[in-house]
């Protein structure tokens, strides 16, 4: 589904991603871990098409299509979803209006009429229930005055509404309380299918107890320096990053 080959990207003179290789197949869950500033959010931004970052080399294909050729909204239409580490406020636009616009634009790109309001509302209710979201939430303005946890939940709500093929969750767990973490993780699990894939970026093993990954990768200084199964996350939780990063430092010195 997603193939990243020797991806190099950065900002101005500063190369942040220094040759990323990653393959994610349909039905899989990948976890990306790594110290602060290692390039995890940058990787997700480049996949989503944030033009702040310049791609200097390598390729990204999504279901065989060259993703780098597409505008960010086209990538979204093709099923790429990014749950932002820092969701953005859109003052004056209600959650329901935003999601309606989002879904209509996607359908328009597919040559479909907008979803009838009745169906849309029904779907919203279902997904709200799935994520234990309280009434009154739909008419609040997008992320305006939301608490940290509410913003994260709002990201997952949008994911549930958009039903993406590839969801990248950038530290969706940070800011969530214990109950919310479980609810959100359950939500993500329920949305999982053989046709879609999930990439979770996290610092904590805790989330991976709920969303069990098939693969765990360690991103460090712009490179994936180690990959393994779910057990790797436990090992990192126990020992920290030193034992993997030291080796990498030696290799790339």
């Amino acid at each position, binding site marked *: 589904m997603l193939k990243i080959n020797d991806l190099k990207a950065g900002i101005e003179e500063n190369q942040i991603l220094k040759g990323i290789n990653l393959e994610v197949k349909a039905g899989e869950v990948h976890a990306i871990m790594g110290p602060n500033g290692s390039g995890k959010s940058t990787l997700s931004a480049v996949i*989503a*098409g*944030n*033009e*702040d970052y310049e791609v200097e080399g390598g390729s990204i294909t999504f279901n065989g299509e060259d993703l780098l050729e597409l*505008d*960010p*909204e086209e*990538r*979204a*239409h093709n099923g790429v*979803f*990014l749950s*932002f580490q820092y*969701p*953005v*406020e*859109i*003052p*004056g*636009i209600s959650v329901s209006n*935003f999601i309606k*616009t*989002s*879904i209509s*634009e*996607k359908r328009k*790109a597919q040559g479909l009429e907008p979803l009838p309001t009745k169906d849309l509302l029904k779907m919203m209710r279902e997904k709200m229930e799935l994520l234990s979201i309280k009434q009154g939430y739909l008419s609040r*303005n*997008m992320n305006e005055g939301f608490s940290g946890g509410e913003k994260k939940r709002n990201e997952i709500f*949008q994911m549930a509404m*958009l039903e993406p093929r590839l969801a990248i969750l950038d530290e969706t767990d940070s800011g969530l309380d214990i109950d919310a973490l479980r609810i959100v993780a359950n939500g993500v699990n329920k949305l999982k299918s053989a046709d879609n894939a999930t990439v979770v970026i996290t610092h904590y093993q805790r989330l991976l107890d709920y969303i069990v990954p098939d693969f765990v990768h360690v991103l460090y200084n712009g490179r994936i320096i180690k990959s393994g199964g779910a057990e790797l996350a436990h090992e990192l939780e126990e020992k920290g990053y030193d034992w993997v990063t030291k080796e990498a430092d030696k290799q790339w010195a």
Partner: protein
Amino acid sequence: MSEQKRQSEDELLEKVTSTEYKYGFTTDIESDTIPKGLSEDVVRIISAKKNEPQWMLDYRLKAYKAWLEMEEPDWANVSYEKPNYQDVIYYSAPKQKPVLDSLDDLDPEMKKTFDKLGISLDEQKKLANVAVDIVMDSVSVATSFKETLAEKGIIFCSISDAIQDHPELVKKYLGTVVPARDNFFSALNSAVFSDGSFCYIPKGVKCPMELSTYFRINEAGTGQFERTLLIADEGSQVSYLEGCTAPMRDENQLHAAVVELIAMDDADIKYSTVQNWYPGNAEGVGGVFNFVTKRGICYKNAKISWTQVETGSAVTWKYPSCILKGDNAIGEFFSVAVTNNRQQADTGTKMIHLGKNTKSTIIAKGISAGKSDGNYRGLVKISKGATNSRNFSQCDSLLMGDKCGSHTFPYIEVKNNSSKVEHEATTSKIGEDQIFYCNQRGIGTEAAIALIVNGYCKDVLNQLPMEFAVEAQKLLEISLEGSVG
């Protein structure tokens, strides 16, 4: 219905994909025009052509004399080449049959204009029925709306007709809120106004529909001097809509309207404007100069609410104001002013509190893009006798790009200490991060800007009647096309 809806969607798409001013075209209608320039004779000719009574001519002549002694104001934060007032044509009335049997009888040029504006056939029929003062009913499809109004004793006609048919009302109220000498442009307007609207709502009557008027500039080089007089008698209610589009021109067009509102005890007037005069091309050549004086007076427990969405004109100078004369009177001003390319706007409001317990609210949202300049200028004046009065003002500016400017000039005078004035101001930019966030959710950049701008203007757009709000949203979208990225 669905056909119509699809049409308007197509239209919107087309607008979104073309950056040129959509309504820029001229109509070749034979006009009854007098030569250029302004003199006492011209004032007399205008009055004579309209068959006006002596008192009206006297009023005009007095205004003309006052104007001669006045100077064009230059305190506003705008710069433009002052019009040559001797190069303007002061009278021009489209020659048209007042009532038509069917659309086939409509001047084909006028028909084309309507088509270009995307006005539906039903609306065209209604529009074509009335020649100069184009009046339409925005609520019911029935053509009998004039009758409905007449049943309630409501008078809604052109000001020229009112001068003929209701001279006592016009004579009593004209110039009482905006005296001819008020300012340079009001004096000019008082001398030469060619037409406009008149409306009277009798005591206790709630106007059953929104009254709306379309104005267009139609004659090359013709200045537009509209005059609107709206009187809401005791305990009455009315919502009035005003909207304009103008044809593309190379020379600057002068527009100096005067609007006077009178809200008697317990009356309620809601006055909404969508202004879309031609702003000039990207270099600012050829746009309309819009110098408007709008003012209302509120007697006891009365309320006047001004809502405006301003997207057009090369230069705008406009301060819809409220004089809160009676106790417990309420004044409101909700405004969105957009400037793009080389547009300049100096707009705002004045709230003059005279009565006790009077309240005013000001929500002004400026949006500047391109190399434009948007200014908010507002005066809140609470007199000594206006005890326990309140004002709340919120002035926000949104900047798009880094070549535009915005300034806020709030003037506050409070002469008693039981009153309270609150002023809030913010300046913000549309963030790249907001646009990317929308993009990531499948919303393209143009649509994202429209969405963000709509959110920013929500408090004002919410004040507009439904259909007008939709039109206003379209205009915002068109006027900000290509302004980011």
